[in-house]
């Protein structure tokens, strides 16, 4: 009970801090808007304010889920996974023969994955998708499409793209709420704090990378697909590590370890963003979806955290037990 209170007060503190930052961000935006001439709204300011409003929504939903506890967090991420996979699989190669494997992915694998997380069955939730789904879904597809006169067209492309959608949007994303299943000695049931820490550190690092990259960025790291620069990533990494250190109290880590973990999570996150940008550029789209005003879709918002989550989970589990 005492532990839970500590978690709640920590989360409330974080929530208050986020609200403070957002109030500041909103004020800056409103002042900028008020200063501009009435005619011809400034596009950059408008986009910025739309984004700030979306952040308000996300902070509110995320805090609510964290305060409800494990069930709230699991449900929130199950919903995010659904929305993300809908965006992802909309753009993949598929045919009529894949209908049942897509149905299985959405209505069986996805809920089952989150149910296993709720049960805390690490062995099962880490094999469900890479073993069972990966082997069973192609079998469904071949049984439905293999009876044609001609070859089953694009078979390998179809099954692998569906599998990657499951991997990114369900498997990887589910490792964020899976952090609550960790039983770290001396950390009690404060695992929701670890989720808040991970998401916060990566998102703030991303934000810093975005601003500094725009201002001082010169050397692009993947010019064909992304505007990310070496300078921006450097600043983002430093900021993420600093923030990770500052928020060590939320984690079971030592201060040095908190910095290292934040840095690792941020760097993998950047890699994830680049990979997702490459897929977008390959499919000729700018955003994955349109559901989050000013930010595109769920995949656009989650890409870095989703990549970082499984590795962060395993490192934490390996080094700190649970």
């Amino acid at each position, binding site marked *: 009970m005492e532990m839970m209170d500590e978690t709640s007060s920590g989360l409330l503190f974080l929530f208050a801090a986020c609200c403070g930052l957002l109030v500041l961000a909103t004020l800056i935006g409103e002042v900028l808007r008020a200063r501009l001439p009435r005619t011809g709204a400034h596009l950059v300011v408008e986009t910025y304010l739309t984004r700030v409003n979306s952040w308000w929504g996300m902070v509110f939903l995320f805090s609510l889920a964290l305060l409800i506890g494990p069930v709230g967090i699991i449900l929130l991420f199950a919903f995010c996974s659904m929305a993300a996979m809908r965006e992802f699989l909309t753009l993949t190669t598929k*045919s009529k023969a894949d209908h049942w494997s*897509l149905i299985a992915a959405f209505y069986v694998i996805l809920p089952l994955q989150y149910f296993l997380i709720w049960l805390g069955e690490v062995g099962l939730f880490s094999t469900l998708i890479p073993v069972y789904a990966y082997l069973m879904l192609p079998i469904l597809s071949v049984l439905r499409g293999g009876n044609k006169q001609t070859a089953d067209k*694009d078979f390998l492309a179809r099954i692998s793209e569906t599998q990657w959608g499951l991997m990114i949007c369900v498997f990887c994303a589910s490792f964020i709420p899976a952090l609550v299943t960790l039983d770290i000695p001396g950390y009690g049931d404060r695992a929701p704090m670890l989720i808040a820490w991970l998401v916060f550190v990566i998102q703030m690092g991303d934000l810093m990378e975005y601003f500094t990259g725009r201002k001082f960025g010169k050397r692009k790291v993947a010019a064909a697909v992304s505007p990310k620069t070496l300078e921006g990533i450097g600043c983002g990494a430093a900021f993420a590590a600093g923030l990770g250190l500052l928020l060590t109290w939320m984690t079971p880590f030592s201060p040095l370890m908190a910095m290292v973990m934040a840095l690792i999570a941020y760097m993998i996150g950047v890699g994830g963003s680049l990979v997702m940008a490459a897929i977008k550029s390959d*499919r*000729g*789209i700018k955003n994955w979806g349109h559901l989050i005003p000013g930010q595109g879709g769920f995949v656009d918002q989650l890409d870095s955290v989703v990549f970082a989550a499984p590795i962060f989970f395993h490192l934490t589990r390996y080094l700190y037990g649970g």
Partner: protein
Amino acid sequence: MRRFAASIVGKLLSLFAQILTAVRADWRGIEPVAKQRVYYANHTSNADLPLIWAVLPAAIRRDTRAVAAADYWLKNKLRAFIGRDVFQGVMVDRRAEHRTEDPIAKIVQALDEGSSIIIFPEGGRNRSEDPLMPFKSGLYNIAKERPEVDLVPCWIDNISHIMPTGEVIPVPLACTVIFGAPVHVKEGEEIGPFLQRASDALLELIPNRGSA
């Protein structure tokens, strides 16, 4: 009472379509304004009509009626309720031997009463591998009768993957309804070239991406 039930069911269907597919409209060639139009769309599944229904602004939706196949929609009471009351269907019989009224006359009458029309000019659900089947003559005849009304091509994107013909369980993929620039029949234009032009205008709306 029946009207009320129909409006509730209509709202539920469009809500369901929105939750499942996050459907949105892409008004590319025209603006969503209350102007009389004939919306013509590709047809691969029973979910097509609810999706167009869901993206039309409520003010436009109220005055929009779907051309529906009587032989399908009047088969049982539930279908009749949905087809006739919810979608305010203009019921036409696809089987010439069963017809008692001229379908074009019925559609033109609906236009003259001020309604907009949703029509699937392929005449049925597309079960082929091609994106569109050849159009039936209906669209041409309507255009000939009322040449001043805009014919608006609407491409329902991704529906063939959400619920392919013959399937009953929809996969929750994102869906977009793309509205193109209006088409009109030209002075003295023959049926063949016109239908080709209308069909091409619809095909042009297909977003290109690497899907099979």
